[in-house]
């Protein structure tokens, strides 16, 4: 993400799971996020099979991550932060930083997209 982006710009962005991402309940009571299979050419596919590389991004969330992802139902980022702050008794600044860092990791893995916000400009 561009560090020059103002916080106000993304406060109203609505995070949601990317289209092809699926959620799977695991035995720990949390959820796993499974991305779509990687698009690989035949040679890379052979190489990946040889080295047993993963075929897709799979992320196991903890309780807090599950709480945040389960609330991605159309609420914007600031409401998501407010919910987390109230749930975990965090200050608003702590919740902002935590949710932003978490979403940044998911964005890097293309598991989440931000609606209502254009990275290219306002």
């Amino acid at each position, binding site marked *: 993400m561009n560090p020059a982006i103002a916080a106000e710009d993304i406060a109203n962005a609505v995070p949601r799971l990317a289209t092809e991402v699926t959620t799977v309940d695991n035995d720990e009571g949390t959820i796993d996020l499974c991305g779509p299979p990687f698009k690989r050419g035949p040679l890379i596919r052979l190489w990946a099979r040889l080295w047993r590389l993963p075929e897709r991004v799979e992320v196991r969330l903890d309780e807090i991550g599950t709480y945040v992802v389960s*609330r991605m139902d159309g609420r914007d980022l600031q*409401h*998501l932060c407010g919910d987390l702050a*109230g749930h975990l*008794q965090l*200050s608003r*600044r702590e919740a902002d930083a935590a949710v932003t860092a978490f979403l940044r990791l998911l964005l890097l893995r293309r598991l989440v997209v931000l609606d209502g916000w254009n990275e290219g400009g306002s």
Partner: protein
Amino acid sequence: MRRIMMMARRNALAKHRPDSKRGAMPTATDVDEAVLALHGWSCRLPIGWELALLRGTWRSGHLLLVEGRAGRMSISWHRGSGRPDLGRTVAKLDHRVAQGRDLRLAGVESVDDGALARWVGPAGEVAAAATWDPVHRLVLVWRQLEPLPLATLSRALASRTVAGGDDPCRWTLHGVDVDLPPGWRLEGLHHVIGLVRATWFLYPGGGIKAAGVCTVRRYALASRLLGQGDPEAWLLRHLGPRDQLEEHDSEDGVARVTVTGPGPTWWDRLRGRRRQRCFQAWREDPGDRLVVQEWVGTGSPLPCLRTRRRPEDRALSPAGGPSPAAEGPTA
């Protein structure tokens, strides 16, 4: 010359100052305020403000206060030997505040051992002040970063207190709120998501060799950290592999664990000297925090630093507790 001009401005503008009488300053207790205390001085500020930046030492430094994402005030302090030229300080402020902004100096007036200046611009009024404590030789410079009611600064000025080097003093740092005996100086502050760690060194008699170290850590999500256990069990679980347990107990919600470990230097270890460390831990229920106090040093250990404040003495930006911004939709 500059001083003369400032005096003229002061005389001209003092006439239409609505609250130029010092006695007209509102008291600190009639509004929702919290205490900011560090490096031997303290003041009262609006409850929603937070400490965003802190640089410096007991001798000098500066800090930045924000409310949400907006900067509110910067405060700098300096302990010097002589009485400063506050007029010159205000003139510097005039240069700095008005630089690049459409502001003009609207007045300078005297406050208790200091001066207060106001600038007027299209967006409103910005004020700054410089105060001098002659007993402890401390200069404080207060600067509003955005147009704010002058009463905010006036209340902060009226409520300021200054402690000397031989006095105990209070520290409020991102929710850590402790009273330390004389001689303890803040040497490190680490604030990340869910953890505040503050470290003080004890310099007895104003020397330069530290005789003790006190570290206070304040963790968020205490209920998750502790699980079904209590702070004592948590402390015992997190001892170092070379720590030898000496004693442990719990009383009134405070767990105490004393351990000894190898000496800090090769010389100490060759001589078989061991270093004692004392841990005390307790929960802060309103914010679901776990506070761990660690003491290392010579002499008698620090007592438990847990404090129970009155509501009007609450610390600025106590992280945790019901967040005022947590009113978003809930399922």
